[in-house]
C-alpha cells in the first residue's frame, strides 16, 4: 500500500511537472518519470506484459521521438510563451477543467471496489495470456493496430515528403558540369594555377 502511494505521488508529480515546465525538454523528462511510475503501477496490477511494453514503447520509442523533435525545433529559442490572442478563455478553461476533475475523482472514490485478494486465473497478464487473446478472439484488434501503424507511417511520409527528385537532378547536373570544366576546359585550370603562382610570389 505504501509503495502504491509513493508511485501515485511520483506519477502526479511528474504530470504536474509536464504542464508547468517552461522548456519542452524538461516536460519530456518529467513525462518519462510519470511513465515509469505508471509502469511500476501496472506491474503491481498484474499486467506484466503491459508494464514492459510501457517502458519499451513509451519511455523508449515515443519519448525518444519527442526528444528528437524538441531538439530539432526548439534549440536556442527563447522559452517565453507568445502573447495571448484569445484572452479570457484561459480562466474559463481552468474553472471548467478543475470542476470536471473534482467530479471525476469524487465519482471514482464514491463507488468502492472489492478488495483484491481473490486468486487470479493462470497466465493473467503475462505474455502467454495476452498472446492467447491477441492471436485468438481479439485478433481483429491486432490487425487494427497493424493497419493503423502502417497508415500512420504513410501519413508521415505524405506530410513531410523527402527531397524532390528535381532538386536532386539539378544538384547532379551542377556537379557533372563542374567535373567537365575541370577535365576538358583549359582556361579555368590555367587561371587557377596562375592565381596560385601569384599567391606564392606575393
Amino acid at each position, binding site marked *: 500500500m505504501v509503495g502504491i502511494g509513493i508511485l501515485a505521488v511520483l506519477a502526479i508529480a511528474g504530470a504536474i511537472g509536464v504542464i508547468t515546465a517552461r522548456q519542452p525538454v524538461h516536460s519530456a523528462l518529467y513525462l518519462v518519470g510519470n511513465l515509469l511510475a505508471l509502469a511500476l503501477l501496472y506491474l503491481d496490477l498484474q499486467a506484466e506484459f503491459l508494464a514492459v511494453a510501457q517502458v519499451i514503447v513509451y519511455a523508449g520509442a515515443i519519448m525518444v521521438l519527442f526528444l528528437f523533435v524538441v531538439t530539432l525545433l526548439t534549440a536556442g529559442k527563447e522559452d517565453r510563451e507568445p502573447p495571448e490572442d484569445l484572452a479570457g478563455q484561459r480562466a474559463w478553461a481552468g474553472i471548467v*477543467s478543475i470542476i470536471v476533475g473534482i467530479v471525476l475523482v469524487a465519482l471514482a472514490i464514491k463507488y468502492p471496489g472489492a478488495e483484491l485478494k481473490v486468486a487470479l486465473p493462470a497466465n493473467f497478464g503475462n505474455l502467454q495470456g495476452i498472446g492467447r487473446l*491477441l492471436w485468438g478472439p481479439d485478433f481483429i484488434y491486432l490487425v487494427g493496430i497493424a493497419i493503423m501503424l502502417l497508415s500512420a507511417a504513410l501519413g508521415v511520409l505524405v506530410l513531410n515528403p523527402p527531397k524532390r527528385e528535381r532538386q536532386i537532378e539539378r544538384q547532379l547536373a551542377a556537379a557533372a558540369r563542374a567535373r567537365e570544366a575541370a577535365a576538358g576546359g583549359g582556361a579555368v585550370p590555367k587561371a587557377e594555377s596562375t592565381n596560385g603562382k601569384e599567391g606564392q610570389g606575393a
Partner: protein
Amino acid sequence: MIYINWVVALAAILFTVGAIGVMFRRNPLIMFMASEMMWNAAALVFIAYAREFHDMNGQVMAFLIMGTAAAEVGIGLAIIVSVYHKRHRLDIDEISRMKG
C-alpha cells in the same frame, strides 16, 4: 492490497492534469505530452478494471491504446514539424488559422 477505486481516482487526477495542460499551454509539443498523459490515464483505468474483473480483455484494450498513441504521436509530430517549417514559430494559434 490495493482498492481499485483509489487507482481509478489516480487515473482521474492524471486525466484532469493532462486536460488542464492541453487547455493552458500554447506550445504544441507540451500540449502533445499532456494528451499522452490523458491516453495513459485511460489505459490505467482499463488495466485496473481488468484486474478487478479478472478479465484480460481490458489489458488487450490497454495494448490497443498504446498502439494508437504511437500512431498518433507519429502523425502529430509530423504535423508540428511541417507547420514549423512554414511559420517558424512554435505556437498553437498558428495552426488555428488553417491557412497554408
